[in-house]
């Protein structure tokens, strides 16, 4: 499709088309108003003149019936004498066409209405409406009225109508152009920004003005969508980077074990390779789950649930594990804390935190889990996490140097943060004496 010259792009905008329609309707309204004004002023004056002519004709014919042409002639003389304004015209013609009385010359050929021009005494021509009627005994009677005043009124009305129509047309067109251009300009701005996004610049945003018109609301909505898109893309990139970096090590180990098993097949080597493959599959499952949770598509499965029951269950599951490490699991759960969310994910989130606390807490020490409607706190007395490391531990595969020697994928806290984020729960890492305190804020 050929793009029109940008200067004329406004002509295709919705605003301009709407303005054009509006203009047409306004003009039609103006024309209607003008028509009515015409009918009630100039039209009225013309009808008035015709009525006077008919009345005069009737009276003259009546006097003719009573006293013949002589009577008509007398009546005409009397009327002309009384007409100071000089707007009345009469003619009584004999059967041979000779003027008997009146101030007109020349009898019209046909009976009935017509417009004529009469030379005035001052030399100017005046438009006159005349009615001609034949007389019973031959000859004709013509009655007329000067239409100069009516014509002048009509002229003025027409002039006014043209002025008004012209102004309306100009204002409407000008307004339409202005509105159309402003709309076209803003739409073009949006289009440019979105084209940049389409071309790969995800940081591009639409201009938002403080006002709240529909364009600003649309821009805000589109920007929010772009924010989400950018976050998703960033998450995707992070996942691919993580996978590339951190799966290489276990895959290499798997390959080495398979190589060893190929050289000297032994059940032990095969079992080791199998365990390595299982661990890899676990990592994939965890990565997929984190990605799925971060994508935020699971809110549809949210349901009201008893958070206390979930916390209680997690505490019971890990109590023996803590006991085996000689730890005291200090549980303080306020009963009946209601929450809306995904029970399976919340269970896993709490389990990951308690599991971490039990594993990293001091053997023979104390692990605490507490739940109130305000927050969930999981605390241990292990080595804790240095302040500088606290943001990084939430990243996939991130493991503290001290933990590298112990088994684990470094995905536990990443999942915790993803699940918390999905549920609008805040996660804070704090110092707990020597150990770590994780505080999940429930109240948004």
């Amino acid at each position, binding site marked *: 499709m050929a793009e029109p010259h940008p200067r004329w792009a406004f002509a295709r905008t919705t605003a301009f088309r709407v303005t054009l329609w509006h203009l047409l309707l306004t003009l039609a309204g103006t024309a209607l108003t003008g028509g009515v004004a015409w009918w009630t002023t100039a039209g009225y004056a013309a009808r008035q003149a015709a009525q006077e002519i008919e009345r005069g004709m009737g009276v003259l014919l009546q006097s003719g019936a009573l006293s013949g042409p002589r009577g008509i002639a007398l009546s005409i003389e009397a009327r002309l004498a009384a007409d100071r304004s000089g707007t009345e015209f009469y003619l009584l013609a004999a059967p041979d066409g000779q003027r008997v009385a009146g101030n007109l010359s020349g009898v019209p050929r046909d009976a009935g209405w017509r417009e004529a021009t009469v030379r005035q005494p001052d030399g100017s021509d005046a438009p006159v409406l005349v009615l001609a009627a034949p007389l019973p005994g031959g000859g004709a009677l013509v009655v007329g009225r000067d239409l100069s005043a009516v014509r002048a009124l009509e002229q003025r009305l027409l002039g006014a109508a043209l002025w008004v129509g012209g102004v309306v047309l100009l204002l409407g067109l000008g307004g339409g152009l202005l509105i159309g251009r402003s709309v076209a300009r803003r739409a073009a701005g949006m289009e440019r920004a979105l084209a940049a996004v389409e071309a790969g610049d995800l940081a591009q945003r639409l201009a938002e003005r403080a006002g709240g018109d529909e364009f600003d609301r649309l821009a805000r909505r589109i920007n929010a969508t772009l924010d989400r898109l950018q976050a998703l893309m960033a998450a995707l990139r992070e996942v691919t980077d993580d996978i590339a970096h951190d799966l290489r090590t276990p895959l290499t180990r798997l390959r080495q074990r398979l190589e060893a098993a190929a050289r000297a097949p032994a059940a032990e080597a095969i079992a080791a390779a199998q365990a390595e493959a299982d661990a890899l*599959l*676990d990592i994939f*499952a965890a990565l*997929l*789950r984190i990605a*799925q*949770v971060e994508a935020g598509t*699971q809110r*549809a*499965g949210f349901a009201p649930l008893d958070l206390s029951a979930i916390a209680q*269950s997690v505490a*019971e*599951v*890990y109590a*023996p*594990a803590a006991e*085996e490490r000689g730890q005291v699991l200090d549980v303080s759960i306020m009963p009946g804390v209601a929450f809306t969310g*995904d*029970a*399976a*994910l919340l*269970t*896993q989130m709490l*389990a990951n935190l308690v*599991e971490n606390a*039990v*594993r990293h807490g001091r053997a023979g020490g104390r692990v605490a889990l507490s739940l109130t409607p305000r927050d969930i706190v999981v605390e241990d007395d292990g080595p804790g996490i240095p302040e500088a490391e606290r943001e990084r531990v939430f990243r996939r595969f991130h493991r503290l140097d001290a933990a590298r020697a112990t*088994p*684990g994928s470094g995905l*536990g806290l990443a999942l915790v943060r993803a699940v918390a984020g999905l549920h609008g729960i805040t996660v804070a890492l704090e110092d707990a004496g020597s150990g770590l305190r994780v505080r999940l804020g429930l109240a948004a």
Partner: protein
Amino acid sequence: MMEAARVRILLVEDDAETAAYVARGLEEAGHVVDRAADGQDGLFLATGGGHDVLVVDRMLPKLDGLSMVRAVRAAGIATPAIFLTARAGVGDRVEGLEAGGDDYLAKPFAFAELLARINALARRPPLQQEVTVLRVADLEMDLIRRTVTRAGQRIELQPREFRLLEFLMRREGQVVTRTMLLEGVWDFHFDPRTSVVETHVSRLRAKLDRGFGRDLIHTVRGAGYVIRADG
């Protein structure tokens, strides 16, 4: 492994290699396997009846697994069904159960896990009679008074230990995997890194078997646990 009862299984799976692998394993375990490679054939075979368990992949050509099981249920056939899926999403499990599935297993799975779940489904007791007392050898569980005795001696169990034992006793003689325990007893639908199941089972075992000479809860290497009377 002592899985004596022969189970007739309909396996609906479009990946030929997986299907062959699963079928071979099930046949080695003494079961009979019918195979279908798409949902339409699967539906046709399933409505023919005569199967004890349906094993249905979720992603199938022609008719997907969910729709197939829904159609089977609509035809009034209650054969227990287990879904296999490559998608381990959280909502997927619920979706599968709502479609009329009885169990749900994410790929990749250990074969022992599938076998244990198939056996559990095939031998699920009919629902009509509610048992009130479970017995394995001299171990007795009263489900109403919620007490456990062995050889007449009262054994004190915590509520969660009681549930764990009940889960095992209801499946006497059947292998129960770690995952089945995690799901059935604790409602954990993920695999914790810490060996929590092992710890719980060994504590329960200590309470049940210590001082009675004969162990009732046995570990099945590479698969899970089983409770049974004979050593």
